[in-house]
C-alpha cells in the first residue's frame, strides 16, 4: 500500500508542480508534525489530567513526607530541619520501633505461609469441582469484600472467652488479652478474610494451564500430589511469586485489624509499625519522626521489589 501511494504522489507532483522536491519536503514535514502530534503530544494531553492528579495526591504528599522525615515537625506549626536525627533514633535507640519491626516480620512470615497454604490447597480442590463451583468460590471470596471493621468485630465476638469459640474446647482465657496469643489470633482473623482472595487468583491462574499437561501426567502415572507439584505449581508460579512479593510488602502496612481488635495491646504485644507510627504522629505529636518511620517502610518495600527484580533477572518467572 505504501509503495502504491508513494507512486501516485510522485505522479501528481510530476503533473501539477514544477518543484516536486519542495512539495515532497513540505509533505514530509507535515507528516512529521502530524506524527509528533498524534504519537507524542496527544497521548501526553490525555495523560496530563491523571498525572496532575497523581502528582497532587501521591507525589507531592510523598515528597512532603520525605521532607518532614528530616525535621522535628510536631504535626502542626513550623518544622525545623534536624538532618538524620530521626533516622539515627529509629535505627539505634528506639526499642519500640525494633520490637514493632520484629512483629511485622513475624506477621510477614505468617502471611507468606498460612494463607498461601490455605489458598493453594483450596484452589487445587476447587479446580476439580464442577457442580456448585461458583457457590464455593463466592462463599470463600466473600470475607475479602467485607469491611475490616465488620470482620474484626465478628472475630472479637468469636474470640470472646465467655461465649465465643474458645468455650467450645473448654478454653477460658481471652486469646486477644494475652501477650503470647494476641498477635497470632489477629493474624488468623485477617487470614480468614484474606485467603479467599489468594485462592481466587490461583484458581484463575490454574484455568490457564493446558489440560494436555494433566493428561500427560496421568499417562506417566502421576498421583494427585505429583500432578500438583510438577504441573499445577509450575503453571501458576508467576502468580504465586508475584503475590508473595505483594504480601511481603503488605505485611509492613498492616494496621486496621490490629487497631480495631487490640489497638496494639495487650501490653504492646501487637504493636506493629503502623500502630507505632499512628501513635507517634497523633498522640505523641512527633509527626516528623513518624514520617521517618513511614519512609523506612517504603525502603523495606523497595528492598523486596529489588530482590524480586534480581531474581527475575536470574531467570525466575515472576
Amino acid at each position: 500500500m505504501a509503495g502504491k501511494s508513494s507512486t501516485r504522489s510522485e505522479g501528481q507532483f510530476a503533473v501539477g508542480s514544477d518543484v516536486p522536491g519542495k512539495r515532497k519536503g513540505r509533505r514530509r514535514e507535515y507528516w512529521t508534525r502530524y506524527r509528533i502530534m498524534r504519537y507524542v503530544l496527544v497521548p501526553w494531553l490525555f495523560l496530563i489530567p491523571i498525572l496532575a492528579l497523581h502528582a497532587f495526591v501521591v507525589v507531592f504528599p510523598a515528597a512532603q513526607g520525605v521532607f518532614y522525615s528530616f525535621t522535628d515537625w510536631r504535626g502542626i506549626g513550623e518544622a525545623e530541619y534536624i538532618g538524620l536525627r530521626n533516622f539515627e533514633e529509629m535505627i539505634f535507640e528506639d526499642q519500640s520501633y525494633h520490637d514493632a519491626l520484629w512483629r511485622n516480620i513475624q506477621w510477614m512470615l505468617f502471611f507468606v505461609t498460612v494463607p498461601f497454604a490455605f489458598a493453594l490447597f483450596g484452589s487445587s480442590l476447587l479446580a476439580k469441582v464442577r457442580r456448585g463451583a461458583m457457590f464455593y468460590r463466592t462463599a470463600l471470596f466473600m470475607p475479602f469484600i467485607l469491611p475490616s471493621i465488620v470482620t474484626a468485630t465478628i472475630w472479637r465476638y468469636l474470640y470472646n472467652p465467655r461465649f465465643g469459640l474458645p468455650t467450645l474446647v473448654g478454653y477460658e482465657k481471652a486469646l486477644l488479652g494475652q501477650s503470647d496469643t494476641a498477635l497470632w489470633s489477629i493474624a488468623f482473623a485477617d487470614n480468614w478474610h484474606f485467603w479467599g482472595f489468594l485462592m481466587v487468583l490461583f484458581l484463575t491462574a490454574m484455568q490457564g494451564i493446558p489440560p494436555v499437561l494433566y493428561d500427560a501426567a496421568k499417562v506417566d502415572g502421576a498421583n494427585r500430589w505429583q500432578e500438583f507439584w510438577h504441573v499445577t505449581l509450575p503453571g501458576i508460579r508467576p502468580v504465586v511469586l508475584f503475590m508473595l512479593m505483594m504480601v511481603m510488602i503488605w505485611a509492613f502496612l498492616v494496621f486496621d485489624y490490629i487497631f480495631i481488635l487490640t489497638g496494639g495491646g495487650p501490653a504492646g504485644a501487637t504493636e506493629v509499625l503502623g500502630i507505632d507510627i499512628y501513635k507517634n504522629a497523633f498522640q505523641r505529636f512527633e509527626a516528623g519522626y513518624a514520617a521517618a518511620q513511614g519512609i523506612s517502610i517504603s525502603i523495606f518495600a523497595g528492598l523486596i521489589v529489588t530482590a524480586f527484580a534480581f531474581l527475575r533477572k536470574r531467570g525466575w518467572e515472576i
Partner: protein
Amino acid sequence: MMFKMRLFTIVLLGLLLALMAGATAAQDSTVTIWAGDDDTGACWSSLLVDTFPREDITVEVVLQPGTNLVDTQRTALQGGAGPDITFSHGPAFMLELASAGLLLNLDVYADEYNWGERFAPWALDLGRVEGSLYSLSEELETVIMYYNKTVFEEQGWEIPKTMDELYALADAIREAGLDVMGPAFGECAPCVEWAVSVFLSHHAGPDKVYEALTGQRPWTDEAFVAAITDLKDIVRDGWFMGSLDLFFSDTFDSAHALFGAGEIAMSFEGTWMLDNYQRDFFGEPAGNDNEWDWFSFPTTFTEDQFFIIGVGSSWGISSATPNPDEAAAVLDHYYSTGFQAQMFEQCGVAPAPLIYEGDVFANSDPREARLYEEFGQASSKGNVGYTSWSFWPARTNVWLWEQIVRVYDDQLSVEDYLAGMQSEFEEEFADGLIPPIPAR
C-alpha cells in the same frame, strides 16, 4: 420589545446581585462547628442551633462521620480550613494548637463576656498559654465507683470509706462469687490511664502530684512507687473483670452488661457513664430490676469525698475564622449555665466546669445532681486531684497509659515505669509543654 428585554435583563441582574449580596451577608455571619455524627453530637448541636438567641448570627453545625474528629479537625486547621469553633481532647492538645498559632487569643472576649466569674477558677486557668486564654474547658469529668445497689443491699455490703475497707469489700465480693469491678479495656488502650490517675492522686496524694507536675518532685518518688505497686497488685489479682486477660481484651458493653446484671459488683468508670447506665444497662431497657448508685473512690489520707478533676475536651476559636466576634458569641451561649444544664438533661453531656447556682439541675436524675453538688463541695475544700488527660503533657501522658500495661504484664518494673515517665516529663517540662496546673 428591545426595551422590555433590556429592562428584564437589568431586573434579573439586580435580583441576582441582591441575592448574592444577601448570601454574602449571611455567609459573613455564619459560625461553623463540627460535631460527631452520632446521637450525642446530633442532640447537642441541634440544641445549640435551636437555643442560640441571636438572629443576626447563623450557627452551622457540620456532622462529621468517623470516630476521630479531633485528628480530622487538627489536620484541617493545619491546612488553613476547618470550623470556626474548634475543640480537642483537652488542655494539653489545645496547648499544641495555640503554640502553633492556630487558635485565637480569647482574653478580650473573656473580659467582654465576664467568663472569669462564670467558670470555676481552675477551669479557666486550664485554657491559658503563657498567661493568655486560648481555650475553654468543657465536660467536667472525674472517675468514680459505680456500684450495683441492689446486689449491695442483698449482700449487706457497706460503701467503703478507706482503702482498707475497699480491700475487705473486694474479698467479700469474691467470696460471693462475683467479679469485683469492671470495666475492660479491649476497645480503648488509653483508657487505662483512669486507674493510674486515681491511684496517683488518691493513694500518693494530690499535693505530691501537684509538686511532680510543677517539677518540684520526681515521678520516681517512693509515694508514687507505692501507689503504682498497689495498682499493679490489684489488677494482676483480677479485681478488674476477674482476670488480666479479660481486663486487656473484653469490651465496655460486655463489662457494663455484666455490671447491670449483677455479675460484677462495681464499675470503676468516669462520670460520662452517668447517663448511659440508667439508659442502657439498668432497669427495664436492660431487662433487669437492678439499681445503681455511686461513691467516690477511697483515699489513703481522708474519709471525705475526694475526686480527681478533669475536662473531657476544650473549645477554642480558629485563628483563621473570618468571624471571631460571632464565634465568641456562640461560645458564650454554649458556656452559659442554662445551656449546659439543658445539654446535660437532654443529651447526657457532662456539664462544663462552671459555677452553678440554684436548682440548675433540678430536672436531672438525683444521683447525677448529687455528684455535681458533692463534687463542688469537695472542690471548695481542696479535696481534688488530677486527671492525666487534662494535666499531663502529651508525650508523658502517652507513656503513662502505654507503659502501665507492660507493668501489669510484668514486662516492666514499677521503678522503670516511673523513671521513664520522669524522663519524658523532664523533656517536655524543659520545652514548656506542661498544661497550666491549678495552684493548691
